[in-house]
């Protein structure tokens, strides 16, 4: 049962890594809620003036957590003045530049470039479950426009769900962080998300972005990663 020992060990390492990321995100969400509540000073709805200091939080997060390419906050329309859409998301510039830029997207409903973030699972899942979530790998078309995963945690203001805070990780940046754990498993293995999609695999058998077919290969086995609410698992075969 040597294989199983190595699998258990890798599963533990992957769960630990993910939990560390989530701890940072929960921390960020807590700070965002605290800051916005302070900025609101008793007013019920978020507006431009409630956002003061959010940029600094994102920048601190990115400085501390070099695995992340972007970080910030998406607000629920119900918490925003006149049911508008507001997000404050800051990312490392494209083409490897070190500058940090504010993400811009079209928030006009009905426009053909409309970035309807409330319908994207990194938002909608956190909103409906009230728990931290992971979405991806996905192409963030019309948003960051890169192949990423997004981890978020919901936050509340005055006791009501008000949005999500979290970070983006480029799939290519994730590879060197996750791969050593997967490579320690002698057979084929992959870290798999809640919708059965490969986040990272250690061979061509399980390629990033593909969906796991049940029963293929025949000796496919699975153990859940011990990370609450994300639905992650480790799939492996000889």
């Amino acid at each position: 049962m040597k294989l199983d020992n190595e699998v258990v060990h890798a599963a533990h390492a992957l769960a630990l890594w993910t939990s560390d990321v989530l701890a940072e995100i929960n921390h960020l969400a807590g700070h965002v809620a605290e800051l916005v509540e302070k900025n609101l000073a008793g007013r019920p709805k978020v507006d431009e003036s409630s956002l003061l200091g959010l940029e600094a939080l994102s920048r601190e997060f990115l400085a501390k957590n070099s695995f992340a390419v972007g970080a910030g906050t998406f607000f629920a329309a119900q918490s925003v003045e006149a049911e508008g859409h507001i997000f404050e998301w800051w990312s490392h510039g494209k083409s490897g530049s070190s500058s940090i830029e504010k993400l811009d997207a079209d928030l006009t409903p009905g426009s053909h470039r409309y970035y309807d973030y409330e319908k994207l699972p990194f938002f909608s899942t956190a909103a409906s479950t009230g728990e931290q979530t992971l979405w991806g790998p996905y192409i963030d078309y019309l948003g960051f426009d890169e192949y990423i995963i997004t981890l978020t945690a919901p936050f509340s203001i005055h006791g009501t769900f008000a949005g999500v805070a979290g970070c983006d990780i480029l799939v290519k940046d994730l590879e060197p962080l996750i791969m050593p754990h997967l490579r320690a498993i002698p057979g084929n293995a992959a870290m798999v998300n809640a919708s059965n999609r490969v986040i990272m695999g250690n061979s061509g058998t399980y390629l990033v972005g593909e969906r796991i077919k049940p029963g293929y290969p025949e000796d496919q086995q699975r153990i859940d990663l011990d990370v609450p609410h994300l639905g992650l698992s480790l799939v492996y075969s000889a």
Partner: protein
Amino acid sequence: MASPSSFQSQIYRSLPEIERAEAIVDRISTAISLGLLKVGERLPAEAALSEMFGVGGATLREALTELRDRGIVETRRGRSGGSFVVKQPQTQADAMRSWFLSTSISEIRDIGDEHAAIAAATIRLACERAEAHDFERLQELARSLVLAHSPEHRASADSRFHVELAVAAQSPRLANAEIRLQQETVQQLWTPLAVAFDPETATAEHLELVRAVAQDQPEKAQELVLGHIRRNIFHLIDTKLTVGYALSNQDAQ
């Protein structure tokens, strides 16, 4: 040494400096018509633009002057200044007409060949990789084509559907290829020059594609998407024949 093949000469062809400003004007105008840039939006700063386009400051300024002359962008001074998109380019009917006049049937067929290759691979991957969230989104995008009220909006809705199909296929490269191919032909498809293109038929075909993807039927999906593209190409060729050869028909009669 043998003379370079046409493929090699394609790789090593010289970069015409004079045409670069024009190419920038076209690129930005097309992006506005497709809704990729919208009215009121600020273009990146001049230095950033010339770096991204890989052109000198003079070429970029030439392009911006042309865009200003056409009334498409406006440059404002001061702290919150910059170049802003102020209006949609002209209906583009004239630009489309000249595209049809200058593009041969063999070139249109070849665009179709490339699009067929990209679309077939994309839809097969989408069948394997898409999930429930993607099906709902694609259905919504398919419906927005029939709800669009103008040729420009139909072009945007049509191209967004196809790009998001490649997004559901999880491939950034195929998505980029699809964006490029859409930019090349989607306006030609929807600008009513000869026979108007029917949005209901196109929407029905898009919905059928989503169904095949949702049911993970790659053979059927591929057949549908190839038929869909063939129909688009036939429409472009029909338009080409009407626009380009109407005159010679009259002469013959």
